[in-house]
């Protein structure tokens, strides 16, 4: 290639860049097929089914207009499960922003047996949720659960409680399970800590600040982006955690610990003509998920400019 030819070559390449869309279409084809089936078709199907009364066979559907939505928005159990969902998410967010942050920071300071600690703290988040919730459920069973047995054995029998069958306690149990699953936030913090700028830490050290002061006043504010990622991911995760409730309290007692996922699951498995109703709930959950996704995009965008 001679020197004179080079500009033309560059021009040609620029031109070819602009026409990449045909190639792009080929590379995006698998994605488009999956999205067309599982998202586009799904949303259309949900929208049309949500105005009908139909069973899971999809035969003999009766058009009921907006009645499913009306019934849904006036159902106290639905409202309750929505509120619970958000409450559990908020509780796990508080745990993540405090406990998970502490665990990640403490483990990053070069403690011994780091791998062992990681194993213990991250394991719950990597086990099937159904398994974690079942273990909690079996541990807290009133008569045979190990917690009450232990309390009785050490003479604190008076503290033994019907953990899963008294509304307030059952709520607390589900909240504890949500807090138990903070492995993901620990991972996010750990990753962000490894990219921490050293200068401010050293300045603080020169000022003679103590460990916990540095954690709280220097490192914590620097993790703003990670805090936001964690808040949004836990909020979204709470809609995916139906097993937590299903396998511990089964939504009880009296549907007081129901979350949106277990609410839908209950109707979907009831076997009656409830599929239209389930579709209406699904549409509402989808709208929430899409809004949160947009929020995430908007919030994480300025971060890109900052860095």
């Amino acid at each position: 290639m001679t020197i004179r030819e080079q500009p033309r070559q560059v021009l040609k390449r620029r031109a070819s860049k602009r026409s990449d869309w045909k190639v792009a279409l080929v590379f995006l084809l698998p994605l488009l097929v999956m999205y067309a089936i599982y998202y586009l078709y799904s949303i259309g199907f949900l929208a049309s089914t949500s105005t009908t009364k139909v069973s899971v066979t999809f035969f003999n559907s009766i058009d009921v207009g907006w009645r499913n939505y009306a019934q849904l928005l006036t159902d106290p159990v639905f409202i309750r499960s929505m509120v619970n969902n958000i409450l559990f998410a908020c509780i796990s967010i508080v745990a993540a922003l405090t406990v998970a942050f502490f665990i990640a920071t403490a483990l990053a300071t070069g403690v011994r047996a780091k791998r062992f600690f990681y194993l213990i703290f991250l394991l719950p988040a990597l086990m099937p949720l159904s398994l974690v919730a079942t273990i909690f459920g079996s541990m807290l069973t009133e008569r045979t659960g190990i917690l009450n047995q232990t309390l009785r054995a050490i003479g604190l029998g008076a503290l033994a409680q019907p953990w899963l069958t008294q509304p307030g306690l059952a709520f607390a149990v589900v909240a504890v399970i949500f807090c138990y699953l903070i492995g993901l936030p620990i991972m996010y913090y750990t990753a962000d800590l490894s990219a921490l700028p050293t200068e401010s830490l050293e300045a603080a050290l020169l000022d003679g600040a103590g460990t916990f002061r540095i954690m709280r006043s220097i490192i914590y504010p620097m993790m703003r982006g990670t805090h936001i990622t964690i808040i949004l991911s836990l909020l979204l995760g709470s809609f995916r955690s139906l097993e937590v409730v299903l396998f511990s309290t089964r939504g009880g007692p009296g549907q007081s610990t129901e979350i949106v996922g277990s609410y839908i699951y209950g109707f979907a498995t009831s076997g009656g003509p409830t599929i239209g109703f389930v579709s209406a709930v699904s549409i509402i959950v989808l709208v929430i998920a899409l809004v949160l996704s947009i929020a995430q995009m908007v919030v994480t965008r300025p971060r890109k400019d900052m860095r």
Partner: protein
Amino acid sequence: MSVARGRVRPNRRTRRSRADNPMRGIVTGRADRITIYALLIVLAVLFAFPLYSAIVKSLEVNGIQNYISLFTDPVGDIPIWQTYLNSLAVGVVHATVVLTVSVTAGYAFSKLHFRGRELGFSAVLLFLAVPGIAILVPVYRITQELGLFNSYVGVGLPEAAITIPFGVLLMRNYGRNISDSLIEAANLDGAGHFRIFWNIFVPLSRPAIVNLTVLCFIWSLQDFLWPSFLFTNPSLTTAAQAVSTFSNALGRGAGDLARFNASLVVLAVPAVLFVVFGLRFIVNGLTTGSTKD
């Protein structure tokens, strides 16, 4: 120890801490170090207690025999190792579909230039947060139409649909870190996009591909929703479903409870193996995929 050494030779500490771990320097006093250990140990005891309690329970009656009998005399007509194999088979489908879609789309969104690329990418990310339960009804319908009930593909596909937005995000983020100059050089040498994709992009993205694969297998192992609706044949029970199968098959007597807890412990083993052998991939995968930049 390192703290003491740091005190004697402050210069060396600063250099060391910069080089390997800046965080090491923040624990300045002995009291702080002890407090950190104490808090970590208390938390670790709390976190380990549930699994510990399951182990204790499982040995209460009949001891280790409960574990042996899980393999010699299956509970609820399904051998426990079969549930692992079922999860694994679903995981293979899940990973294959996710990789095919995400690596190709990741290439398009990071290395090709076309109008509306960023908009298209944002549209893909819009579905990052969709919970499986929200598309339960249409997926049931799609599975019905395609005749995919009781097949690994039938469960692997919707799992993949849920994972794909994340997979595309991961591959595109990783792809953006691959230098364009390599691709331009190959382009100048006359290599087409398909050769560049296969001979340059795929090999260079190997770390991200490995991370994504490990995550797909973990998520298949954890998934309860899709198998519970799309598998009706008990012999297809996956590991996440097995919990309820065993719970239904066993009674509430002390012996059965011990056996049930033994099965819970055994079901936790794959997760332990994942953490012990694959933690690096999991953490890298989840964290590179978490941000949009």
